[in-house]
């Protein structure tokens, strides 16, 4: 049956019944004596009203009360009509009053309901009364068992009709099923409350009929009380029932929630279902907060399910926002009435706004995660209980949702991390930087499905942002070059912070022309390792709002990994490069170490450098320390023409500013363009066609030994720091090789010179004769130094000139000239030599570059080099050689050899001199020794002993033998000859002369001739020997010991002293002359007698002429004095005393004359 027809029928039914009842009453109204029963009827009506008021609900819309008791009592007392009327009135009044008070329904409905109620009550009363009467019921004045049956009938009818009427009404509304449901729900309560108390109505009747008003009032009061009690109990019972059902619902809900999977959507559905069991959820909203966004998970409108929708900014607005903030539910009974009192305005607008609603926040812990709101078009559709129940369910669900959310988030995270890990693993395996970039962008796009992914890298050298890879194959580098700070990517690169722009149209930093046309949202993250930004990872989407925090998280994590991978790849690349450079240098080292020749080494270096460094030209210049110029050594990459030009190049300081700079600063320089043109000679630049030049110093032990020039033909070709460093490595190797080669060459040089000098030394050392040595030297020197002529002069100190000693290679004329030349101070060349300086006499030659260091040039006609031969700073001679041209490289060596030879010769000269001197010395020594021996042998071994006489002698040879001697020999007649003499010579000749003299005197005296005659004879013998150089002073005396006489003659000798015993002194003078000078000498002869105690002292001039430090002579006076003083003593004592005295007098001064003493004393 259609709704329309149902409601129509309902109307009809209700009104029909109403009218029927009222009509019936109206008809039968005449039967009632209204005036009599008016007042009690009113009383009963009131009572009925009151009791009705104390009714309770079991099912919504149905009120139970004890009113039927009153109504039935009225019926029994006053008859069916009156009773019916009362019931009608009370019913009507009650409903109207209630409607008036509450205003929940439209008037028409209320009136209809009241009408029906009243009508039904009337009909019930009439029918029940009729049947009662029919059943034999009376007025009921006396109660008895016979009244039971009719009463039962009455009660049954009343009860049945009531329920029938209402049941029918339900049936019309919702069909027989609804009616049955209604009845089922109602009858237990009805039975208890409405049927059972009906018998109590009898009591009321009975009491009323007794006429005792007081008791009746008490009864009425009691009934009211009971009704109230019943009402209370019923309410309580209802509440209990409600609670139970609530708990049940909660429990069911809780179980359901627990059982539910941790799925947010499922949970929302569950809430919806549970709520539906509590209230009418034909208008149901369940939404969750996500930041500012409010997403409706369950949306039911008029029982029609709507799709889920998100409202980006709705989370804080309206009642929903209020709930979020206040965490409180809201029950709205009637929007129309309470609109102004609402804490917030509802934010939704619809054509058919609801009348009542219930709003419940979903609270999980401290946070409101969502809201639930149910609306109804009927006002007051929801109760506080509903609110409470829904709140509890909602909160439980909220906890579950939150858990589900967290779980979902965790799962999401886990998934993301797994993806990130996947990508990272793949990325980390790539070491090639380029491949890395490409792989990364494609992997990211594949894994996460972004519209476009690109990578920009920051060049570590230039700090520029360069495009590296993109998922768009059409993109190429030149199109998308960005400056640092330009665009989103540039900003990210500069700041090192990520940037998320979910709507690029609102992002001021977005640069359209760089972007891809379909981009709506962009997310760029920096690729950072520690604090360094290596690049930018850029992701774009063609939808706005495509990127969430999740995406940011994913990309940042990925970016970190990618950054590390980039760093690794870069390090790897750097390592590779290093390895390559090291290998290159090793190659160079290997190549150069095998070669010992410097030219080969340099040629290899200039050849390898272009290969290894990729340059076009390479050349090396060596620095000549002597000449102070850069000389070309090797070059590569040149044509023959260029090579010729190269070999003529020469850079003195000032010729090429760049080279000077490099030489002084010892650091490399890169030149190109104008700078190059101004620092290097233009001819060179043009000839060699160089546009870009790198000049490196070749340093060995901190000194510049050369430069390496490396060049590009193209100006644009660059010398990066790495290239320069590599070429520097090669340059260092070259420098080391150069130094080694130079050392080696120097060693060779030294070896050569040493060998040459060794030869000279050998030749010279094996000879002792100076002439021989010098002639060897002049022969060897030309061979060793490659000259034709060599001459040696010796310096004559006495004459003050150089005397020719040896010559070699001279022509005859030159020889003639040589042997007659005696150059001295006047010769300019020799003057230098005398000063100890080598000198060169050259004809004036301005182009003679190679003047040797330390050699004085002297103007001359022939080119001659003169070297001093000096030993111990004394110039002993000079050596002259031809001054021929020698190549520059060998000049030093040549000079070294010559100087060495000169030194050796000088030493040889000195040595021979010394040797000679020494030999001379030794010869002298030897001579002296022989002389001394001879002398000693000729002196008497001991003094003869004469009785009555004492005789002693002392002979001290001087350092240089002087030739003194004394002699004793026996003469006939027991006489003694005494001789003292002085040969005026020294050394061996003196000794020989002494021997001769002694012999001569002995010979001439032996036969007893007088002293004068003897000496004269001796003189004759000496003179007769024409070759004799003998001069000798002789004192000869003959002693006659018996007579005590001393006869004597003196040939030029110091007259002996005679000291008498009394101290008187006499000189035994006798005229004479030294023997050996003239023929036929005249000698005086004298005689003297000696007494006891008299002394005769014979001496030589070594005694009297002994000098002290002041050149004072000891003198005769002192001698006399000593002898006088010591005359008492024995001759040996006297001799000792004289000796002492002389020694003391002389001190340290060495004596050069012999010291001879003979002392004769007469002791008896």
């Amino acid at each position, binding site marked *: 049956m259609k709704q329309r027809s149902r409601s129509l029928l309902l109307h009809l039914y209700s009104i029909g019944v109403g009218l029927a009842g009222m009509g019936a009453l109206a008809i039968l109204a005449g039967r009632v004596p209204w005036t009599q029963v008016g007042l009690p009827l009113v009383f009963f009506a009131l009572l009925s009203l009151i009791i009705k008021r104390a009714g309770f609900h079991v099912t919504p819309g149905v009120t139970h009360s004890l009113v039927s008791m009153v109504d039935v009592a009225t019926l029994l007392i006053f008859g069916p009509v009156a009773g019916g009327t009362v019931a009608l009135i009370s019913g009507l009044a009650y409903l109207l009053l209630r409607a008036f008070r509450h205003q929940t329904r439209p008037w028409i409905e209320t009136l209809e309901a009241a009408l029906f109620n009243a009508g039904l009550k009337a009909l019930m009363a009439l029918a029940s009364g009729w049947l009662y009467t029919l059943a034999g019921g009376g007025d009921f004045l006396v109660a008895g068992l016979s009244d039971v049956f009719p009463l039962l009938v009455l009660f049954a009818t009343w009860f049945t009709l009531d329920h029938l009427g209402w049941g029918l009404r339900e049936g019309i509304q919702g069909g027989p099923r609804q009616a049955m449901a209604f009845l089922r729900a109602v009858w237990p309560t009805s039975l208890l409350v409405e049927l059972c108390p009906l018998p109590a109505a009898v009591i009321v009747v009975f009491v009323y009929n007794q006429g005792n008003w007081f008791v009746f009032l008490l009864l009425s009061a009691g009934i009211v009380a009971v009704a109230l009690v019943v009402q209370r109990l019923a309410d309580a019972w209802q509440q209990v029932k409600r609670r139970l059902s609530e708990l049940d619902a909660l429990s069911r809900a809780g179980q359901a929630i627990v059982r539910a999977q941790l799925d947010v959507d499922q949970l929302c559905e569950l809430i919806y279902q549970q709520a539906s069991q509590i209230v009418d959820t034909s208008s149901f909203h369940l939404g969750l907060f996500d930041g500012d966004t409010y997403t409706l998970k369950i949306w039911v409108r008029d029982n029609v399910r709507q799709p889920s929708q998100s409202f980006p900014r709705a989370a804080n607005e309206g009642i929903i926002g209020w709930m979020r903030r206040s965490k409180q539910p809201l029950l709205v009974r009637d929007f129309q009435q309470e609109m102004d009192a609402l804490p917030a305005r509802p934010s939704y607008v619809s054509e058919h706004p609801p009348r009542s609603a219930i709003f419940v926040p979903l609270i999980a812990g401290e946070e409101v995660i969502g809201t639930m709101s149910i609306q109804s078009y009927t006002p007051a559709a929801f109760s506080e209980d509903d609110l409470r129940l829904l709140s509890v369910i909602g909160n439980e669900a909220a906890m579950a949702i939150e858990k589900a959310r967290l779980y979902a988030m965790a799962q999401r995270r886990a998934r993301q991390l797994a993806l990130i890990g996947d990508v990272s693993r793949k990325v980390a395996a790539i070491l090639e930087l380029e491949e890395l970039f490409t792989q990364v962008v494609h992997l990211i796009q594949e894994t996460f499905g972004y519209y476009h992914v690109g990578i920009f890298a920051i060049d570590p050298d230039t700090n520029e942002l360069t495009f590296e890879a993109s998922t768009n194959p059409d993109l190429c580098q030149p199109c998308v070059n960005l400056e640092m700070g330009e665009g989103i990517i540039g900003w990210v690169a500069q700041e090192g912070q990520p940037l998320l722009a979910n709507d690029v149209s609102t992002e001021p930093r977005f640069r359209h022309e760089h972007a891809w046309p379909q981009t709506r949202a962009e997310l760029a993250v920096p690729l950072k390792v520690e604090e360094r930004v290596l690049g930018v990872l850029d992701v774009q989407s063609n939808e706005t709002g495509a990127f969430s925090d999740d995406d940011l998280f994913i990309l940042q994590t990925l970016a970190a990994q990618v950054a590390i991978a980039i760093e690794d790849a870069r390090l790897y690349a750097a390592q590779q490069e290093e390895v390559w450079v090291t290998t290159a240098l090793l190659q160079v080292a290997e190549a150069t170490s095998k070669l010992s020749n410097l030219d080969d080494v340099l040629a290899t270096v200039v050849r390898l450098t272009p290969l290894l460094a990729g340059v076009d030209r390479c050349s090396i210049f060596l620095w000549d320390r002597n000449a102070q110029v850069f000389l070309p050594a090797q070059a590569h990459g040149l044509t023959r023409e260029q090579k010729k030009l190269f070999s003529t190049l020469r850079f003195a300081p000032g010729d090429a500013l760049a080279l000077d700079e490099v030489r002084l600063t010892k650091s490399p320089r890169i030149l190109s363009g104008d700078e190059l043109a101004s620092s290097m000679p233009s001819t060179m630049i043009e000839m060699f066609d160089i546009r870009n030049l790198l000049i490196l110093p070749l340093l060995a032990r901190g000194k510049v030994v050369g430069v390496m020039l490396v060049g590009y033909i193209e100006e644009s070709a660059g010398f990066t720091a790495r290239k320069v460093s590599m070429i520097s490595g090669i340059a260092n190797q070259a420098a080391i090789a150069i130094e080694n080669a130079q050392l080696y060459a120097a060693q060779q040089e030294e070896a050569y010179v040493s060998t040459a000098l060794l030869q000279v030394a050998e030749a010279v050392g094996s000879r002792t004769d100076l002439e021989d040595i010098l002639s060897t030297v002049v022969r060897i020197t030309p061979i060793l130094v490659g000259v034709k002529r060599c001459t040696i002069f010796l310096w004559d100190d006495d004459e003050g000139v150089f005397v020719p000693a040896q010559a070699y290679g001279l022509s005859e004329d030159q020889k003639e000239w040589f042997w007659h030349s005696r150059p001295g101070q006047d010769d300019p060349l020799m003057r230098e030599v005398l000063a100890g300086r080598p000198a060169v006499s050259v004809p004036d030659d301005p182009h003679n570059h190679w003047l040797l260091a330390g050699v004085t040039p002297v103007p001359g006609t022939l080119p001659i080099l003169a070297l001093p031969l000096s030993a111990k700073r004394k110039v002993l001679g000079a050596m002259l050689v031809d001054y021929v041209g020698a190549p520059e490289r060998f000049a030093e060596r040549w000079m070294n050899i010559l100087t060495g030879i000169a030194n050796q010769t000088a030493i040889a000269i000195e040595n021979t001199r010394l040797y000679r001197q020494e030999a001379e010395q030794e010869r002298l020594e030897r001579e002296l020794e022989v002389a001394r021996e001879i002398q000693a042998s000729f002196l008497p071994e001991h003094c003869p002993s004469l009785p009555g006489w004492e005789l002693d002698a002392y002979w001290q040879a001087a350092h240089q033998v002087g030739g003194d001697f004394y002699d004793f020999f026996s003469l006939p007649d027991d006489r003694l000859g005494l001789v003292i003499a*002085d040969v005026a010579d020294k050394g061996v000749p003196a000794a020989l002369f002494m021997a001769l003299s002694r012999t001569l005197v002995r010979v001439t005296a032996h036969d007893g001739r007088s002293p004068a005659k003897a000496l004269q004879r001796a003189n004759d013998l000496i003179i007769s020997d024409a070759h004799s150089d003998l001069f000798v002073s002789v004192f000869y005396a003959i002693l006659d010991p018996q007579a005590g006489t001393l006869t004597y003659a003196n040939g030029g*000798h110091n007259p002996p002293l005679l000291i008498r015993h009394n101290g008187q002194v006499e000189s035994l003078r006798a*005229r*004479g*002359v030294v023997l050996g000078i*003239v023929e036929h000498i005249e000698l005086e002869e004298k005689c003297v007698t000696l007494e006891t105690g008299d002394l005769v002292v014979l001496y030589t001039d070594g005694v009297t002429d002994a000098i002290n430090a002041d*050149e004072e002579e000891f003198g005769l006076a002192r001698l006399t004095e000593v002898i006088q003083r010591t005359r008492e003593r024995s001759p040996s004592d006297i001799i000792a005393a004289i000796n002492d005295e002389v020694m003391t007098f002389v001190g340290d001064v060495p004596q050069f004359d012999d010291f001879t003493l003979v002392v004769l004393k007469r002791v008896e």
Partner: protein
Amino acid sequence: MNGHASSYQPGVWVIEAGGRIDAMHAPVLEAALQRALAQGKYRLLVHLGQARYLSSHSLKALLVARQKARSHGGDLVLCCTPPRVQEILEITGLTQILSLYESEEEAASALASV
């Protein structure tokens, strides 16, 4: 000890022997005398004005030089002998052999006429 021509007589070669002419210095005198003789100077005058002593060696040198000079037609004379030298000459008896003069002028003119 170099000699010089006499200012009085250019043909006379004067050798001034000064100081203490002992065994050490005698060779110097000897060398000077020999050098002069080698140079053909046979008129020799030995000036002893500054001489403090004459050893037997120097005496011998004088005598040898005198002999050589005389063999070439010249002579050797002494002049200005100090007392000590005189004494030595007397002891040795050479005063009778050698010609002694008081002054150089005297000696020179005596030599010149040899």
